[in-house]
């Protein structure tokens, strides 16, 4: 018989090894981000020569990046696109999902399957055709062109998530509202939407993240810097001059930090939203 001390030591060693493994991976996750933030507070020289932690923090880099680097403009652009696209998706997809779930009409299944099929079929070259289409419609290099494209990107998954939720939602409240003389739009706006807050949160988070991080469509749609969101502007900034790395790092921090902060506060919704969105799509 081996002694209990043997088993205890074995267990402690195993636990220690497990923690060592977990912590080293966690450090590797955080390291580039911490490094990015620290670099954004250095001067160009300190980035290349000095140690990891700077002796003096140059917070003015953020002011310079915001004003001179133009990141203030790009930041507001990104906010504007994210808010408009998410609002658009919530309204358009919840209207459609509500009809698919509650009403009977010709072509209902056909249209719904059409949206489903779009989630399954990858078209890697679609941005080429989108570029041509937006040119024809004179919507290229316009915010509205980008917003409409991005609404379309999030539509299928959102409709699917919302319809699934509506299907499970009891209809009693809506029946009561109808008897009280509520119109179909009234039932959608006053009854269904307020009741679907849990799934709406998922839809909002999933799409907001998608829009904030979107790159390729913004790249082919925008020529003018004044319209660019952060993701594309960052790359333009790097390509343009002898790169001012502290300002670039400040720009990168401005791009990444809002997401991380929102994530830390709304972890549950974000994980749920991203996972459901990805697995469905």
């Amino acid at each position: 018989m081996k002694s209990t001390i043997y088993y205890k030591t074995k267990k402690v060693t195993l636990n220690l090894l497990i923690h060592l493994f977990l912590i080293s991976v966690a450090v590797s996750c955080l390291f580039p981000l911490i490094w990015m933030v620290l670099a954004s507070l250095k001067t160009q020289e300190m980035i290349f020569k000095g140690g990891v932690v700077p002796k003096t923090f140059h917070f003015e880099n953020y002011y310079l990046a915001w004003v001179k680097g133009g990141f203030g403009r790009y930041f507001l652009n990104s906010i504007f696109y994210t808010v408009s696209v998410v609002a658009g998706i919530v309204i358009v997809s919840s209207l459609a999902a509500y009809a698919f779930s509650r009403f009977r009409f010709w072509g209902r299944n056909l249209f719904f399957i059409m949206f489903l099929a779009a989630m399954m079929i990858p078209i890697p070259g679609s941005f080429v055709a989108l570029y041509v289409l937006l040119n024809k419609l004179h919507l290229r290099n316009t915010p509205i062109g980008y917003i409409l494209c991005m609404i379309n990107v999030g539509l299928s998954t959102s409709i699917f998530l919302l319809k699934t939720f509506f299907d499970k939602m009891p209809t009693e409240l809506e029946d009561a509202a109808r008897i009280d003389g509520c119109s179909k739009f009234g039932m959608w706006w006053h009854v269904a939407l307020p009741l679907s807050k849990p799934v709406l949160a998922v839809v909002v988070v999933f799409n907001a993240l998608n829009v904030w991080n979107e790159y390729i469509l913004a790249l082919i749609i925008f020529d003018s810097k004044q319209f660019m969101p952060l993701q594309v502007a960052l790359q333009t900034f790097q390509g343009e001059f002898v790169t001012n790395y502290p300002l670039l790092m400040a720009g990168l921090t401005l791009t990444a930090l809002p997401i991380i902060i929102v994530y830390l506060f709304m972890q549950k919704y974000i994980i749920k939203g991203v996972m459901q969105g990805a697995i469905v799509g």
Partner: protein
Amino acid sequence: MRIKPTLENYIFILPAVLIFSIFYIIPFIWVFQLGFYEWDGILPTKVFVGLGNFKDIIFNDPHWWRSLHNAGYITLIALTFQNAIAFLLAWACDREIRLKNFYRLIFFIPPILSELVVGMVWGFIIRDNPQGAGLANRFLLALGFPELVRSWLSDKNTVLTTVALIHSWKGFGWGFLIFLAGLQTIPRELYEAARVDGANAWQSFRKVTIPLMVPVMILVAILTVLGAMQAFVLIIGLVGGEFAGYASVPVLRILASMRYSSMFGYACAQGITFGFILIIISFIQYRFSKRARQV
């Protein structure tokens, strides 16, 4: 009286159908049309070339084959290395352990960041002065391996592996969360029963955990393959621009055909070809997963 309610139903789906038709269905059809033409994207005239573009892609485009090979390599690393790490982490977290929620919180930070930001930050960390801080090489020197020092992102022998590893860094959090959710659905009694029957930790891992996790593994594998095959923004951030050279992937080739060679027809044909490849891969995985579920 009967027409109005029907009309109302269609008004609900009208905005969605309209946006979808214009921004999904029309481009979808155009990709297939343009694939059979030679067109620079500007001139009003297009030249019909039939299957010419596809012939060129298959027989005269070594860059295309190279890019497919690269995407396959990144996918392979993601399937093996990234998912192995993800599974080990999930297994390590699936117990009474301190800081569990903290680890979960941290591991999912890379996946929520944009590929471009991840690529640019890592690229700057790895590249040598003056394009970057050269931390990778400084680290190797500090550890006493001067012979390993190289320019990781411009050396043709290392660039692809570097890209694949950073792709794994960004992606393992997905697999981790899905694996962890899967592991937590396994009833604890099964482990108890295995222990009572005299199984050691390794045996119960092999005979209980692994078989029950097969469906979850297949799901993760499918998501990994589709994600890794189409990853390209990370490469733009890391290597810079659409001319990723030795690290180019199919989507970057499509982008380069369109933006730098102004060969819109060819770009669409590349898109169709790659789309078919992806569909075939998904189909094979689907069949495979069906069979695995029956066993």
